[in-house]
């Protein structure tokens, strides 16, 4: 039986999933199922409601929505609508991405803390697995495994909702599935989601590093330490700023240190930290602003910002500290 480092890492990751199956696997799946069910019901209810109202009255004759939708003159609009849907349907999974932010946050908070609290760390330390490997396995779960599970769930949920919508529309005489299936956007959608993963990893590193470090250090009340210290720092800085009447750039500290320490696990956090990233929306556009935004390319452009790499370096440094803490921190 090979006990190579790669094999050990595989088992370490498996161990994380055994311990956190509820948080990392079942929670996203459950959210996805609930979203699908609720979404389907909502769509069916809305369409049923709309059906009751007639769209137009032409020469005294009521015209249904489906009739309008199916006319030739409507065709270009129809094409545009379907293309927008195909390109952006994955956005409907937003609740899952929000959930990911919280899941990874709390996972990291407990990663090096829980097994010190119940003393099971002494069992893991009795096995020939280095502290570096242990901590890195948790980083991998936080930055890769958990997001991948959520991305897969999000893709499936979005697809399911789309199918549900198509089904409901079809029941009312509007058939869109065939055309949707022909649009490349439908398939590229999930691919683009997965393509955001490296950007997510980079911007989440500072938070993951900070949380793992606190997780490995705190003897109790880990949440209070992890959140309290940055907030206290923020308050302190504001107070000093007001006291000394210096024009210290408080905002800089708040964004670049405190927010990055706490909010990095939220997908899309880079838009919070770097508001300049998102392009200005021109007032004359009638189309949805989001339609103009190529989320993938835009997000990847954030990699040109030095802040991204400085933050990642800080995160890596804190992970190193977490490894040292794991090695030498003594339990009462």
């Amino acid at each position, binding site marked *: *039986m090979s*006990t190579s480092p790669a*094999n*050990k890492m*595989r*088992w*370490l990751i*498996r*161990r994380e999933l*055994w*311990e956190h199956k509820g948080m990392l696997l079942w929670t996203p799946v459950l959210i996805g199922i609930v979203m699908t069910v609720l979404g389907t019901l909502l769509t069916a209810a809305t369409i049923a409601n709309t059906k009751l109202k007639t769209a137009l009255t032409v020469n005294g004759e009521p015209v249904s929505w489906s009739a309008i939708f199916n006319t030739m003159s409507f065709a270009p609009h129809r094409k545009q609508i379907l293309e927008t849907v195909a390109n952006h349907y994955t956005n409907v999974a937003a609740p899952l991405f929000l959930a990911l932010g919280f899941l990874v946050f709390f996972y990291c908070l407990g990663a090096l803390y829980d*097994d010190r609290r*119940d*003393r*099971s760390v*002494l*069992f893991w*330390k*009795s*096995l*020939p*697995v*280095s502290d570096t490997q242990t901590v890195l396995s948790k980083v991998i779960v936080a930055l890769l495994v958990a997001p991948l599970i959520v991305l897969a769930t999000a893709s499936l949920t979005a697809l399911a909702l789309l199918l549900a919508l198509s089904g409901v529309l079809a029941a009312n005489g509007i058939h869109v599935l065939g055309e949707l299936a022909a649009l490349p956007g439908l398939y590229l959608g999930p691919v683009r989601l997965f393509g955001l993963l490296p950007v997510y990893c980079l911007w989440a590193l500072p938070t993951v590093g900070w949380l793992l470090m606190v997780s490995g250090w705190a003897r109790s009340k880990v949440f209070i330490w992890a959140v309290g210290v940055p907030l206290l720092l923020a308050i302190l800085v504001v107070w000093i700023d007001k006291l000394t009447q210096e024009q210290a750039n408080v905002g800089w500290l708040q964004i670049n240190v405190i927010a990055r320490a706490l909010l990095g696990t939220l997908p899309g956090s880079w838009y919070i930290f770097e508001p300049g990233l998102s392009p200005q929306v021109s007032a004359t556009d009638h189309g949805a602003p989001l339609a103009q935004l190529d989320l993938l390319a835009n997000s990847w452009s954030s990699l040109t910002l030095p802040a991204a790499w400085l933050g990642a370096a800080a995160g890596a440094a804190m992970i190193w500290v977490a490894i040292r803490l794991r*090695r*030498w921190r*003594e339990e009462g």
Partner: protein
Amino acid sequence: MNTELDKNSVISARALRKQYGKQAALDGVSFDIAPGRIVGLIGPNGSGKTTTLKAILGLTGFEGELSVLGRDPRLQRDALMEDVCFIADVAILPGWLKVSDAVDFVAGVHPRFDRSKAERYLALTKLSPTMKVRSMSKGMVVQLHLALVMAIDAKLLVLDEPTLGLDILYRKQFYQNLLEDYFDENKTIVITTHQIEEVEHILSDLLFIRDGRIVLAASMEEVGERYVEVMVGPQQLNAARALLPLGERSVFGKSVMLFDGVSREQLALLGELHAPSLADLFVATMKGSYQ
């Protein structure tokens, strides 16, 4: 004792020191442990025995020199853990762990784990593969932990209060399994325990530790030769006390005195001789701690 570390010892310690704030947990601990022995590291709470074990297992830093299986636990801990196994406290397996997962994990990360052995031990218990630790009694958790440990071909096994809080059945079974299936002349075991009577006859060597120092280091054979208890009648009391006993206690109105290194012929004149129990020897040696 040589001031150099002994290369032939499984564990060799010289002048170990460790401070926690102002308290010296270890204050110059030196000892050697030869291979194939079962050593009892016995001392009162706060004597430094837990700190000594932690030092041996690389769980704490220290000053001084320490060599475990030829390695410094501070610098080569990861390599050391392939040859050393320990059970630190009763029932420290995490509650969410399943029996089958525990076996799979250890099999996946430990090069010296024999899976079929572990499964054989588990078959003799009431543990089923799908059981989780949180649904097991303390004794069952120890059975699982022991099954895993005994299937690992480690050269050194460190047991820190392994039977604490277990009922008598599990305790007896613990040592039975250890002696019957695990221990051989290539392995060394270090035990700390408060249940001195339980391990008295299992030990081959003794280390008494007090206030961060070793106050007695001897094989059980030497202990048997050095220490004698005498039941002294009232007429012999003064003569006996003149020989400077290590300790004196009263049993049914008679005085029982413990002597270290005094000839048996001399002592036979004062009363009935017998071998002191380890517990009595411990109390007599540790008297200072409780004053």
